[in-house]
């Protein structure tokens, strides 16, 4: 994660002092510059696309069931994403669509989990 990207994303979408400036006054929950959690989501989405999603019949997602930001992401951190399938089922309303529920996880260079989420994704089904 580049410092300039962290600041640029935050300036547009999440202008909290601790996402914009290392010198923001520290609190007992924030110290130094950290990336917006939504920036981590966006960066993870790109990993998901490049990792496998663009090669699938993905048809979008209805949402995110739950997401946790567990640790701050700092300039210079190197993030790694992984996705585990936790359930697959046909859509009740659309027989041509299947729902795949994932648990996605993002870790930093120390192996610490910085974010995880669970979400359903829609995929086209093979014609019966």
């Amino acid at each position: 994660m580049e410092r300039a990207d962290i600041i640029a994303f935050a300036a547009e979408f999440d202008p909290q002092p601790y996402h914009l400036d290392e010198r923001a006054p520290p609190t007992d929950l924030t110290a130094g510059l950290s990336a917006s959690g939504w920036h981590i989501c966006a960066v993870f989405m790109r990993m998901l696309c490049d990792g496998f999603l663009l090669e699938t019949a993905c048809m979008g997602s209805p949402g995110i069931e739950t997401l946790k930001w567990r640790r701050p992401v700092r300039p210079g951190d190197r993030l790694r994403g992984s996705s585990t399938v936790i359930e697959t089922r046909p859509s009740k309303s659309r027989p041509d669509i299947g729902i795949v529920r994932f648990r996605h996880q993002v870790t930093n260079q120390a192996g610490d989990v910085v974010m995880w989420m669970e979400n359903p994704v829609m995929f086209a089904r093979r014609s019966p």
Partner: protein
Amino acid sequence: MIYEEIVVGSTHELGAHTFTRDEIKRFATLYDPQRFHVDEEAAEASLLGGLCASGWHTAAVMMSLFSRHFAREIERAAASGRPSPPLGPSPGFDDLRWLKPVYPDDTITFTGRIAAKRETGSRPGWGIVSIETLGTNQAGEPVFTHTGHVFVAKAKTV
């Protein structure tokens, strides 16, 4: 703005944003280059019915309006001599739903309703406030909702 001042059930008008075709493609090219977010022809043939914003783009715009709304509230508190710490970080969110696609030129208006607040045993200086957001398009159709959680400083820490 401090934890004690937050009223459960109160509603905040966060503001509105019109999504342009260019910004939809710019965000998606960087972060979510699925065909229905970057390629107009492929998008027409998709389940979504046309080029539409990445759901993460809609969420980020919600956050932008949310941040700026609460920054104004904090400035107002400071101007009237009340405690005015910045909002704390967020531990996460639940129940985010992309209910309808956001298309170019759609204007999405966001509101936030304070759904709950609670003290935390592990962080005595802070409370956690849960805010249910709702994004509605110009036709009045809900397109986005989520329940975000945020640490808010309590009076004795400021």
